[in-house]
């Protein structure tokens, strides 16, 4: 075994490159800037492109243009920038443009605290698109996840033609950590699907039994249309309410019906536990530490760490929670994902531990909550 020392942000950049990303555009913002710095080191020598936009709106829009030209693209920001991304997240959702968007979260609201961590954007990431259609949000726990989940994010973006958001956190992104790069379990790389040869191409036509349109790039031999407006199969604006309904329903179900294929999670089981901790992101590390400390005691706890946050991996949560008397949701905000857990497990006793003060939730806080309710 040999170890390297990498920041979470650098691991995201390296994971992106390993997944085939060759276009990055960003705008400097703490604590996400080192993703941009890393991409600037990594991509030009590979013939890739790194641009700094005049603002976050331009940065993500550069990416959408390059993605429509066939490239695998990524951008990265934090709270104030993810706010500006909103209109283009909507575009990517509605017009099925593959892109990976990293939010290295910092304490909000607004400009908040540039160098303090939080998981305060979790619901914003889900609901930041006009129209309210689902998006995929993955949440890394450590530097290994930063690498491998970013690769998964690209695969999902390509396969499902959608934006995939990575909910990182200052406490992961800017923390240096040892990583065994040779031991990482890297997924097979997936590319977007071109149409079968000889078929007349319509940019949003979906083959029978499939839920994602084939992709041809703008700039290729066949003229391709892309539009942010409500469109039919041919990429032209449509007012046909039946066609509109079919498309929007498909945008919803293509992600929600596939959730079992990309429900990333880790479950740490304590045999005698009556409490199940549900958590994600950097807070999962405090939960793991708490689990270790109390696993031999009279009131131990199991831990379910969600790495896919959206769409909500409901079946995993239900199946895991059913054998427990109590669920404790721990997250680095004042109560966001706990709403989903309350929704999914209406008959269970659910406690909540949250904190938004720029500091990590500690194992001790979690143990006290387990002991005292």
């Amino acid at each position, binding site marked *: 075994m*040999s*170890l*390297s*020392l990498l920041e979470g942000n650098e691991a995201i950049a*390296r994971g992106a490159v390993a997944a085939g990303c060759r276009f990055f*555009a960003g705008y400097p913002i*703490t604590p996400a800037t080192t993703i941009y710095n890393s991409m600037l*080191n990594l991509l*030009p*020598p590979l*013939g890739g*492109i790194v*641009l700094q*936009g*005049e*603002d976050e709106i*331009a940065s993500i*829009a*550069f*990416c*959408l*243009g*390059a993605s*429509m*030209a066939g490239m695998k*693209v990524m951008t990265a920001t934090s709270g104030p920038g993810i706010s500006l991304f909103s*209109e*283009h997240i909507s*575009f990517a959702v509605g017009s099925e443009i593959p892109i990976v968007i990293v939010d290295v979260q910092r304490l909000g609201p607004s400009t908040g605290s*540039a*160098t303090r961590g939080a998981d305060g954007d979790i619901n914003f990431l889900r609901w930041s698109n006009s129209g309210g259609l689902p998006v995929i949000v993955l949440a890394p726990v450590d530097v290994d996840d930063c690498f491998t989940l970013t690769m998964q994010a690209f695969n999902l973006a390509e396969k499902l033609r959608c934006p995939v958001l990575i909910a990182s956190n200052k*406490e992961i992104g*800017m*923390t*240096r*950590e*040892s*990583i065994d*790069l*040779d031991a990482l379990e890297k997924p097979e790389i997936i590319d977007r699907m071109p149409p079968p040869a000889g078929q007349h191409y319509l940019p949003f036509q979906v083959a029978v039994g499939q839920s994602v349109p084939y992709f041809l*790039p*703008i*700039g*290729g*031999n*066949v*003229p391709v*249309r*892309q*539009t*942010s407006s409500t469109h039919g199969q041919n*990429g032209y*604006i449509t007012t046909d309410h039946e066609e509109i309904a079919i498309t929007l329903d498909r945008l919803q179900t293509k992600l929600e019906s596939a959730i079992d294929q990309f429900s990333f999670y880790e479950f740490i089981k304590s045999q005698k536990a009556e409490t199940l901790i549900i958590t994600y992101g*950097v807070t999962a*590390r*405090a939960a*793991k*530490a708490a689990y270790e400390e109390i696993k031999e005691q009279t009131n131990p706890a199991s831990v379910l760490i969600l790495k896919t946050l959206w769409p909500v991996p409901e079946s995993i949560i239900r199946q895991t929670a059913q054998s427990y008397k109590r669920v404790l949701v721990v997250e680095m905000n004042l109560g966001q994902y706990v709403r989903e857990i309350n929704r999914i497990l209406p008959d269970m006793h659910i406690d909540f531990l949250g904190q938004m003060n720029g500091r*990590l939730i500690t194992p*001790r806080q979690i143990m006290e909550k387990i002991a005292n309710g």
Partner: protein
Amino acid sequence: MASLLNNQRPPVFCPGCSHERITHILDQVFQKMGLNGDQIVIVSDIGCSGLFDTFFDTHALHGLHGRALTYAVGLKMAKPDLNVVVTMGDGGQGIGGAHLLAACRRNLDLTLLILNNFNFGMTGGQFSATTPQEAQIGSGFLNQLERPLDICQVARTAGAPYVTRCSAFRKDLVEEIQRAIEFEGFSVIDIWGVCPGRFTKKNRLTPKLIDEALSKLSPQEGVVSENVRKEYGRHYRELAADHKISTTPVKIEAKFNPPQPDRQEIILLGSAGQRIITAGEILCLAGLSAGLHATQKNEYNITVLRGLSISELILSPKKIDFSGIKQPSVIVALAQEGVDRRMDLFGNLDDDTMVLQINGVHIPPTRAFIHRVNLKTQGVKKSDWALACLAILAKLKRVISLEMLQAALEIKFREKTLEVSLKIVSDVKIERQVD
């Protein structure tokens, strides 16, 4: 060449609208240039100008208001051979002002046609960035308060190398647009036209009046010689080809045994300029050389050259879960700013914790074991104190050993810097100061 107009979708503009005229002119341009549909992308945004992409059998990308230039950047960088024609209205120019400025400065080979009809036609004739102050428009008196923008002056000042201001009724508009497309660099044509649906309902504007108005302004016609320079994409590819600083992460094999076998937590409390973050990284690398896992969590102010600098470090034989400090093994008190930020650390310590205190840095009352050193009298520079403290820890066989520290320095530094660092490490004395 054949027309690239989409015969399924004829233009749908209001009768008399300049946009329709420009649609046909643009088709003639494409024909004259002998372009096929797959060699062109029309990028548009919101408003009547945003309908343009639908009338042509070319590649097309229609997006959000004012952002057309931004998608065009991604497309052109990814497909340098593609002819990228961007249509925007005066509305899109206003809301996307920052993008226009950036495009002028960047000089990527895009052609921007601003279909300037002095109001928001689609939403009810509200005023835009180019509406005259005396015009009667759909937003009451508000346009009287704002001076209209001279797009071409702005574009020139921002560095656009090709700027034309003209009428939609100009006789050689086909040739002019062709020149703009063929120009290698960012070209802007501000095309003044008539909006019969809104603007000319209450305002008189004819081709003749447009010509008169244009004649009162300084002419803008094509190449702006002082702004001509390398095209961005070409220049980018030249510079990127020489940009060879990619590094693969160093892989560190376990060679040594750590002095303590269990999890060790170390906090460096210092100030900017003391190379706290670098010292933290060196401590982690030292840990890796003994097969330990490591985390480094830093805290510093946004003003990087002033104020506190803190590094929290964990070395552990197991993968590290919680990356915060639970029970520190060592606190290194290097500067008052750092100590003051973490006053709350000191109260709960017992003598399992060692505080390595630089003489003159005050710490709160604590039951920790205090090892005070005077690095000033040892002649160590303030910027080397953090490294010197690592050396003291190594010599005390606390957290790291000397061979681990030396290995880390050999990974981190080269040549002169390595030499100097190794000398600091060997020279520093562990002598404990007593009152």
